């Protein structure tokens, strides 16, 4: 992908793919009745995505990443604020980078 224009074209294509996924969910749901079971499935799916991302990051990462995410979780339980929890995780990772 050396030519600048073709690179740009591919980026636009990738952008269209991402946009397609952004609109497909709501368009699909126009075709189905939202039953309680379907709602349960969607809800489980939505949180499963978050679980999967967190667990994958921890599995791929080292002790530093796992510790940071754990601190974020504990901070969340203590302060009930995602921003503070996030900061707790980031600061933990920065500190452990600094001292290692």
């Amino acid at each position: 992908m050396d030519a600048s224009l073709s690179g740009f074209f591919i980026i636009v294509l990738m952008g269209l793919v991402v946009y397609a996924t952004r609109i497909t969910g709501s368009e699909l749901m126009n075709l189905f009745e939202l039953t309680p079971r379907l709602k349960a499935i969607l809800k489980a799916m939505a949180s499963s995505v978050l679980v999967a991302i967190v667990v994958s990051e921890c599995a791929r990462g080292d002790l530093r990443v796992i510790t940071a995410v754990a601190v974020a979780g504990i901070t969340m339980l203590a302060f009930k604020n995602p921003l503070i929890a996030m900061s707790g995780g980031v600061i933990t990772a920065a500190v452990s980078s600094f001292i290692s």
Partner: protein
Amino acid sequence: MQVTSEILISARGVRRGMRKMFALALFIVPYGMAFGVAAIDSGMSATHAVAMSVFMFSGAAQFASLDLWSSASVVSLLLVVLAVSARFILLGASLSPWVNKLNRPQRLAALTMLSDPNFADSLNAFQNHERDIGRLFGGGLVLWAAWIIGTTVGAVIGETFGDLERFGIDVLMPSYFAALLLAGWLSEWQGRQTWLPAVTAALVAVIGLHVLPPGWNIVGAAVAGGVVGGLFHGR
């Protein structure tokens, strides 16, 4: 979810979304910088790096495509982007009880700005009687702007800036997601209906990490968690 009161999209809602996401957007700037630096590192031009953030607006998809940018075919590149972004379908479906009350042009416009943080904020707000889809769009706008600004800064000073990982930026996304999960569980724990899908998703994600192509373990975990959630619904 039965949505009865009127759904709309207004400039006021957009401003409310922007305000709600502003603090988080400040955290997105260094994350965008990390992407910009990584993109330059992967041999991409600064223009292409910024174009990616403008047109894709997805950290996961963009980072994933960086790996393949210089080596892979266009088709495999697009498939990886699709796999990593497949979860947006789930997010869009989750917002559909509210978003689908808009007409199609409004809906297609509002969803251009769908991303994880403003999805989480909007879903929570809609469940608590927010009726303005501008909340989603405005939140996305400010995140998008921060993402583009960060990418630009990171790309321009990429060669000299150094490694953002030592500032802990790499754990920002999982930390935020962990906090969001806990927030949801604290407000609405439903016993087996909550933990069984979560445990299933975690197992599939870890196993899939080793046996599936990049991104597909997330898709597989979501599907598995959803199936388990559906199977055990009402039991």
